[in-house]
């Protein structure tokens, strides 16, 4: 696949360099570790730090979500690979303002180990309290009985948003963790893949689907999904995705939700709006109230084709946090 890059082994470095140069008023690269970025503005004393991160290739996630009302720092891994403990630890030290730091990241073996090691080191070396919330929104990645094994995908946006808003409002670490954990518990995502992406270093497509095929539940890194089949019309695809979500997490008539229809990379906004149209039809038919909607490419898999639907149930507390303003390079909300 053709890419506008210079050197496949330098893409992450050059990406970060460009990103930081583009948004110098928002983000700052740490001299201690070039894979650690924090907000350009120092955060206030006593604020719980919010740290996110994971592999690269999901932009605007995760680097795009550092800023007021969202994360205070991010650790950047290689493409589709967890960052090592060092940048996590260095960012942790900088964003800790005496009240501890929450790590919000997707539930992948690598991230669990690296963030876990960093959390231990932060405690041992610097006495920083770290709370962790692992995002497990991908319904397709494990059966309900093993929800704790599920992967984290687009729903991480809402979990980050909840944590970021709670921290911004002055909640203490335990409460920020509680809120983020609740957001994760209330969040489900189901996705569909159409066309593969390729790693710059291999140039090989991450999976193969025939010209008329789609795959339900395909992972955010091209991991195999749960069902391959003929490409269906958008409405039928959405029916399937929303059905699986609501089966896994029933929502009563009258309840409020936030919705994210997320594009994986090369899927157009036009298609995402058409998909959202159907999500809205289904939910409003069931009497479920859409409190706020997000439609766009919030968490990608390089240039993969496909999309996902995320639904987060909102109680009053979460609804307020979803409405909380944010000011990040790649996501601003008034």
């Amino acid at each position, binding site marked *: 696949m053709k890419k506008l890059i210079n050197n496949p082994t330098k893409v992450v470095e050059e990406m970060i360099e460009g990103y930081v140069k583009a948004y110098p008023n928002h983000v700052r690269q740490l001299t201690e570790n070039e894979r650690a970025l924090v907000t350009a503005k120092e955060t206030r004393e006593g604020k719980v730090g919010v740290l996110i991160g994971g*592999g690269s290739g999901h932009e605007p996630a995760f680097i795009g979500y550092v800023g007021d009302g969202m994360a205070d720092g991010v650790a950047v891994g*290689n493409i589709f690979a967890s960052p090592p*403990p060092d940048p996590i630890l260095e960012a942790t030290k900088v964003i800790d303002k005496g009240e501890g730091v929450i790590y919000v990241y997707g539930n992948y073996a*690598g991230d669990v180990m690296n963030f876990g090691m960093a959390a231990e080191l932060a405690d041992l070396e610097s006495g920083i309290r770290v709370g962790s919330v692992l995002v497990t929104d991908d319904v*397709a990645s494990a059966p309900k009985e093993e929800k704790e094994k599920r992967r984290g995908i687009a729903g991480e946006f809402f979990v980050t948003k909840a944590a970021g808003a709670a921290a911004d409002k002055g909640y203490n670490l335990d409460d920020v963790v509680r809120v983020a954990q609740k957001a994760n518990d209330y969040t489900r995502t189901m996705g569909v893949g159409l066309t593969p992406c390729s790693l710059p270093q291999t140039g090989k497509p991450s999976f193969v689907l025939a010209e008329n095929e789609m795959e339900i539940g395909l992972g955010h890194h*091209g991991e195999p999904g*749960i069902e391959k089949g003929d490409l269906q019309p958008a409405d039928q695809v959405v029916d399937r995705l929303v059905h699986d979500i609501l089966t896994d997490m029933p929502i009563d008539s009258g309840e409020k939700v936030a919705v994210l229809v997320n594009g994986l990379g090369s899927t157009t906004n036009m298609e995402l709006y058409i998909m959202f149209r159907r999500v809205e039809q289904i939910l409003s038919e069931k009497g479920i109230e859409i409190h706020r909607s997000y439609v766009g490419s919030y968490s990608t898999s390089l240039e993969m084709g496909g999309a996902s639907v995320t639904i987060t149930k909102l109680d009053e507390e979460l609804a307020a946090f979803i409405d909380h303003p944010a000011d990040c390079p790649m996501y601003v909300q008034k």
Partner: protein
Amino acid sequence: MKITAEEIKVFLKNVVTMIEAEKDYLCELDRKLGDGDHGVTMSIGWQAVNEKLEGDLKEEQDCGKISIVTGRTFLSAVGSSVGPLYATGFMRGAKAFQGKSELSGEDLKDFWIAFIEGIKERGKAEVGDKTMIDTLQPALESLQSNFGKSNDFLSAFESVVQAAEKGMESTKDILSKRGRSSRLGERSLGTIDPGAASSFMILKTFLTTIKSAQVA
């Protein structure tokens, strides 16, 4: 038998070369099961180790230090799943080498036992989870029983590599459960787990390295 610090560095160098050769194959396995990057990750990590071997470690004679620097360097360069796993292996193994510039069969046995135990502890995977543990656990058991019997590290390690290979092959018949490849479907059947493959290759490279060290 005696293995010198230089020979340990030759082993690490051989891993660097081997990984470059097997990079595409490891990615291919990972594309079938996971996110397709295992060869890339290993390559990035071992290239970083290679830089150390040609730099800071050039004159280093303390095998413990060599192993620690290898683990730390690998981890800082890659993260990923295998970063903490292999790094923990080298860092735990380093204890058996600490302060030594020459290693006995006993030291080598202790190193690999600590290496594998460290990975098990770090990843908490079990045999049958379709991970590198399916390669490493039989290797561990083989090492413990065979070295105990003979006290001949080289011949014991021949059996270790055989057991590792059988373990690696067994992952073909297992559904994926861990890592970025963990999932529901049955499509993972028939493919060797990439980490099971790379860990076998590392053990095998160690064997060929100490064999030619013996000959020389």
